[in-house]
């Protein structure tokens, strides 16, 4: 049976050694005369041998789970296979060792890739212009909402300070709305888990800046009323914002543009297979329709038919949302992924992702509660509430899954599903893997009945057992100097 590697690993600061790694020019004497008052007196670090540092992190890595190990069905996160060629490309000197302020004649390759990516994303999103600058999905949202604001303010419409979101929205949506200076109005979903048109109508007003949704939504359900929604929103003078985290469910079938959205952010680290890095970096380019183009952050990459260049002349630009041009190395990976797939390939990605989702949905039906309708796009949300009678919660199911050497689904999101278990298989899981995943989850549902303790004390086969999260928050120990 699966067991994760266990190393009783010290903290690096608890190790002992001397530095073996040499720095360039370290043998010289430097006459560095810093005024005493500005001189550092203490630095509580240690020295270590290169070898030991390396081992430390290699051992730690063995105690971490990645999508290169096994199924990672984290709903909303689109944990798909990250092509290895992308890693090969970004490890080239020509990606790593170029500086953003270099004369543009010396970075034509970089600019070409950015330009091509912009063009691809325009088509995929059904948008007229794209900025690559936002460095994560949430940053894309923030950028999009700054654009919303600039758009309305440019029209001297200063009262539009409300953003409407459905209660099924991801937390970043309201949070970004706040960051951009808006008030968030949350509207409840209807009984089908979809946008409640009446609630929307009620919420919409001359104060509405934008309605922010994702479609398919976080339940994985496609909202068939989307054109009607767009009409309602636009009618009120508001804009329609598309959270692109769920693009994997519709790519090549439809586009946000076609559905009537004005703005979309892309999650390159989800849909476009750039690795998630254990929490980042990602990239969250934003696409807009023509009427928002003039507000985009600077610079924009342009091409005059011969030469790629950075254009800082964007009429009503909002300025900058990140230090330079976005997460270039992530952009390169997404570019590579799109090149590998091509237009048909991306459509197939969606088709297979949706097939996989519905397959596992049907396999698990009956074992876990399935709120709302059956047909899903790229993800499906079950509820573990049928196990409550055994004293077992969704958290326990998740922990127990780890014992089988697979990752757990996203849990307790979206908030509108009680004891939510949000499964997104993605297109890169084989039928064999999904059968395996379903078998595990069915087995666990049986274990819940027969031996609930087994779940409540899970996981058993990981590097550590279940962690006391409450204690961690009550007495936070956030650095090694806080250890008593």
């Amino acid at each position, binding site marked *: 049976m699966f067991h*994760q590697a266990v190393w009783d690993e010290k*903290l690096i600061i608890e190790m002992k050694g001397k530095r073996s*790694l040499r*720095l360039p020019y*370290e043998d010289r004497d*430097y006459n560095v005369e810093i005024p005493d008052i*500005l001189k*550092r007196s203490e630095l509580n*670090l*240690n020295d270590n041998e*290169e070898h030991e*540092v390396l081992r430390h992190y*290699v051992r730690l*890595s063995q105690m971490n789970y990645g999508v290169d190990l096994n199924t990672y069905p*984290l709903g909303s996160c689109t944990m798909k296979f990250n092509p290895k060629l992308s890693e090969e490309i970004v*490890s*080239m000197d020509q990606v790593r*060792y*170029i500086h953003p302020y270099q004369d543009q004649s010396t970075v034509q*390759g*970089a600019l070409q890739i950015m330009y091509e990516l912009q063009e691809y994303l325009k*088509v995929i999103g059904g948008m007229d212009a794209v900025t690559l600058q936002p*460095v994560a999905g949430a*940053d894309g949202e923030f950028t999009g909402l700054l654009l919303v604001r600039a758009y309305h303010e440019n029209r001297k419409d200063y009262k539009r300070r409300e953003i409407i979101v459905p209660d099924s929205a991801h*937390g*970043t949506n*309201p949070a970004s709305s*706040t960051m951009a*200076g808006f008030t968030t109005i949350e509207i409840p979903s209807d009984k089908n888990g979809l946008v409640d048109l009446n609630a929307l109508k009620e919420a919409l007003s001359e104060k509405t800046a934008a309605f922010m949704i994702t479609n398919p939504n976080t339940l994985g359900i496609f909202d068939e009323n*989307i*054109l009607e929604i767009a009409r309602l929103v636009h009618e009120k003078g508001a804009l329609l914002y598309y959270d692109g985290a769920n693009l994997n469910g519709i790519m090549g079938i439809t586009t946000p543009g*076609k559905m009537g959205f004005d703005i979309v952010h892309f999650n390159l*680290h989800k849909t476009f297979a750039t690795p*998630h*890095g254990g929490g*980042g*970096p990602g990239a969250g380019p934003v696409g807009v329709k023509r009427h928002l183009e003039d507000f985009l952050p600077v610079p924009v990459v342009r091409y005059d038919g011969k030469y790629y260049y950075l254009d800082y002349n964007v009429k009503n630009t909002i*300025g*900058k949302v*990140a*230090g330079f041009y976005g997460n*270039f190395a*992530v952009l390169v990976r997404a570019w*590579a992924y*799109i090149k*590998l797939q091509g*237009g048909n390939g*991306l459509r197939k990605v969606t088709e297979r992702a949706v097939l*996989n989702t*519905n397959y596992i949905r*049907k396999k698990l039906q009956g074992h876990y509660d399935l709120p709302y309708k059956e047909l899903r796009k790229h993800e499906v949300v079950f509820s573990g509430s049928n196990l409550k009678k055994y004293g077992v919660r969704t958290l326990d199911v998740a922990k127990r899954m780890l014992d089988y050497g697979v990752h757990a689904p996203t849990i307790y999101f979206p908030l509108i599903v009680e004891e939510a278990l949000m499964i997104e298989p993605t297109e890169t899981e084989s039928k064999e893997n999904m059968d395996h995943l379903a078998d595990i989850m069915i087995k666990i549902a049986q274990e819940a009945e027969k031996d609930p303790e087994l779940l409540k004390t899970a996981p058993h086969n990981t*590097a*550590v057992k279940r*962690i006391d*999260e409450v204690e961690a*928050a009550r007495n936070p120990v956030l*650095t*090694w*100097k806080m*250890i008593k």
Partner: protein
Amino acid sequence: MDDEKEMMDFLGIKSIEELFSDIPESVKIGGLDIGDGIDEHSLRIKAREILSKNKTSFDMPIFLGAGVYQHYIPSGVFSVASRSEFYTAYTPYQPEISQGMLQTLFEYQSYIAELTGMDVANASMYDYATALGEAARMANAINGKNEILIPKNLQWEKKSVLRNYVKGLDMKIIEYPYDSKTGKINIEELKRLINEKTAAVYAENPNFFGVIDENVLKIREFGNFVFIVGINPISLGLLKPPGDYGADIVIGEGQILGNPINFGGPLLGIFATKMEHVRKMPGRLIGMSKDRDGKRAFVMTLQTREQHIRRAKATSNICSNEALCAVFSAAYLSFLGKSGLKKLAEINMGRAEETRKMICSIRGYTNAHDSLHFNEFVVKLPFEEIKVHRFLLSKGIHGGYLMNTWSNNSFPELGNAMLLNVTEVHTDSDIKRLVDALKEVK
């Protein structure tokens, strides 16, 4: 193929199209007009073809800094960061199976806290610029005030990002001047600008000119605002940590610590603060706890600050951050260790100061700021900025940042000027070539 057939049979559907029956025909598209996919090898060739148009710092010495810096990155750092268990992981939502990433991030936080002299650091912000934006917002959250004082000679990109970050709070950004002789804070003016509306004062050390400014030591006593300090983390091998002079929040660019520049991204926003402010802090925090056997274990903590729990009331919208860059930095700092970091700061300062002297002894080239510098400095040029730049380029050298040509800031007092960066990666011969070439410009 057969797999798909089997799955379709199981679902009782005849065509994949049926799975999309909920999508109105009117929004369906005919396809994506972006060309056909290509095989891996053809892409390998194509990528090399395109990227060969880039010139790297191995092709020519590049004296650019101005926010992101070229440093020697131990090859082992790449080995660590390319462990697929790290880079193909998501955010460690299931801590029991993610101890590797969690412990590494805990170490990163600890390193940053140690370096900056602060109590706590978060697991990363996007970059230096957005860290500044977040810091300003946090200041407002701490004291509810609305004005932030920033240096006039702040990099324009940071100003622009800051403006966007505080726009939602209707905060006012006020620039305080610097002394044009020394390039340091005009401390009297700064003092004068501080009042009861001041939410925060932001100061950098070293600053955009590369100047080391001991004036930062005096700011704390000017009042009860949130004191935000921007640092270069390597300089902290030698310089007093902001924690020692009263900083509430310390930010900086973590790319410097072992991350390649990558044309400016991904970067790594450093963000540290005092324990008393921790619940106002943006970003992810890793804490140490115990598992049910009492064994040490790590876990994301204080999540009630974050968007997935607090939604509209979260301290920030940040979700995906720059975790892998923090892994680079943790590994980097571990390879360097205490002695390495100190030494590295010395090398940077020493070599840059030597270069500055060499250049300023060329007729016509003068020192813009009569101060100590860390690893970059402004030189006034006897010719048009762009002319000097192009001449260097024609000699296979990439000069520094053009202070008036490339910046949306303007520095009229500097005339033609270039911000040159020198670190341990610039060889003696690189520097000699630069100096020789500058002599030749006419």
